[in-house]
């Protein structure tokens, strides 16, 4: 009972405001690089989470996020699916079918144009290479740290996994984006209907600069009282703690097989999780669902935990940890 209602007793707005004003700092070197992408801190906001406003990006950055990934953007605005779009399983697990709702690349680009401070990774979703090319051009006047190609949304037809599962399309999309921009390009992969390592291989062969693994895993929940699927889209993507062991495995497999910078994503909610991903071969991590359980304080909590761990274990850079578990 208590927990449910604690949320109600919020900090006074004054306090909230002053807290937001301060910038997260830590006394160790948390800098990392994902290929040519250099970040001050290794914990990034995953795509689709709180990701539609520059003001919020600023807030997250000040709270400790090393970079923010935008909601996946399409050429046109999308409303997404009707509610219910998200369902909490408890224990850190979530299923969502937001349906890639987003204001469209052009609107979004206009909104983030004033950005100077925040490392923003622009996530893009589309069905053909032309979609991606067109969107990248929209961002010509923006400070974009990298593009992340969402090849792995498990619950929206014609984009996401339907693209990621088609090697020929992956090749075309990655190549065309690489030809359109000098900004680093990341491919985000997930468990689809073809072997995700094939998708990774194709993306690498086509010149991608880094891999984010993984997206949500296709899943569902049914309400036993009303005997219907809960999400309006029936199927959604499983995220949060349940998928962490799967995501970790993928990072380990990718880093064992390919020489490519990796961003680990899936179920990170503690500093131990982050370290596990580094040890498996990730140079940085992304998180989303943990915010639903621990709010945005999770960024400073994880950064602090990593920092303490590095001190205790005498690591002076994140890099030193990357892939260590493969040596044993």
């Amino acid at each position: 009972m208590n927990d449910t209602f604690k949320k109600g007793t919020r900090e006074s707005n004054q306090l909230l405001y002053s807290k937001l004003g301060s910038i997260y700092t830590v006394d160790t070197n948390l800098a990392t690089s994902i290929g040519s992408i250099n970040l001050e801190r290794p914990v990034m906001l995953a795509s689709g989470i709180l990701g539609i406003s520059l003001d919020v990006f600023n807030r997250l950055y000040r709270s400790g996020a090393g970079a923010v990934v935008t909601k996946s953007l399409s050429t046109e605005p999308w409303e997404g699916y009707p509610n219910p779009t998200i369902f909490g399983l408890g224990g850190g697990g979530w299923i969502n079918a937001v349906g890639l709702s987003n204001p469209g690349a052009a609107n979004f680009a206009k909104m983030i144009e004033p950005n100077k401070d925040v490392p923003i990774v622009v996530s893009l979703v589309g069905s053909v290479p032309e979609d991606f090319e067109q969107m990248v051009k929209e961002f010509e006047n923006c400070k974009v740290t990298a593009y992340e190609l969402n090849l792995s949304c498990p619950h929206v037809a014609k984009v996401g996994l339907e693209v990621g599962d088609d090697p020929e399309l992956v090749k075309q999309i990655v190549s065309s984006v690489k030809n359109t921009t000098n900004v680093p390009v990341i491919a985000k992969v997930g468990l689809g209907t073809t072997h995700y390592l094939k998708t990774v291989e194709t993306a690498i062969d086509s010149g991608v600069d880094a891999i984010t693994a993984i997206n949500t895993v296709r899943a569902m929940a049914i309400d036993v009282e009303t005997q219907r699927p809960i999400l309006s889209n029936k199927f959604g993507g499983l995220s949060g703690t349940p998928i962490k062991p799967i995501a970790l495995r993928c990072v380990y497999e990718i880093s064992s097989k390919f020489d490519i910078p990796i961003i680990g994503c899936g179920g990170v909610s503690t500093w131990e999780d982050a370290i596990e991903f580094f040890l498996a071969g990730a140079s940085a991590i992304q998180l989303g669902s943990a915010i639903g359980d621990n709010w945005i304080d999770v960024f400073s909590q994880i950064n602090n935990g990593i920092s303490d761990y590095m001190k205790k274990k005498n690591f002076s850079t994140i890099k030193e940890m990357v892939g260590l578990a493969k040596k044993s």
Partner: protein
Amino acid sequence: MQRNPNHTTIVTVEKVIEETPTVRTLVYSDDVMPNVLPGQFAMVWIPGVNELPMSVMISQESGKAAFTVRKHGAASTGLFNIQPGQKIGIRGPYGNSFDIKAGKLLLVGGGTGLVPMMRLITNLTPSHDVTLLIGAKTKDEVFFEDLANQLLKDNKHQVLVSTDDGSYGENGFVTDLVEKLVSENHFDGVYVCGPEKMMYKTVQSAHSRGIFVQASLERMMKCGVGICGSCCIGEDLVCHDGTIFDGEHLSKNKEFGYFHRNKAGILENY
């Protein structure tokens, strides 16, 4: 085991009260919702239709809570049409709650924005001196006036209604009444919920005079838990940082009163 607030709980609507031709109150039994704080809301699933954020309405029967819904688009109409015996899903409670000041309070509610005011009233003490303003377009749309008088019977209080067309109570916008009252009286706290323009003007009237004021904001909500971002206003997430913000904070917000985001996340004018 504590109930998981993010896991939909199914409840059966037991009673439907017709408040106006377009507003109904749906009463149900539940363990959690009868005890939420004033201002908290739930995500309400209308199976097969949609899921909507709804302020948790009080019920005068113990162990029960309610939703008071105005029939509008497809989703709210779906909820409006629920009959006794039918099931809906609820998750929450979400959001923060009003900071209740001692002394003389002004409560301002427009339409279903009255819902949090009713729960706020049940959290007051007899020493509170309460003025409740009910704003409505026309006489037919006035509701909760009797309920409010009844709930406030042990308090020094007045319940004033204003209608835009003057068909009942004061003639004109409720915000004009607010401006008049705060300029002529001392208040220790002002609380408002209703259409954004109404909240904006009320906050201006009070805050410019240094009166403590809080408004309960509405934005497009998908998750209700601070994940999806659809409810953002400036750097705040209404579902998580709010829904209640005070005048000081709102006065610095560039979007309050002017913009909201639509389902695609695009800023639109009010």
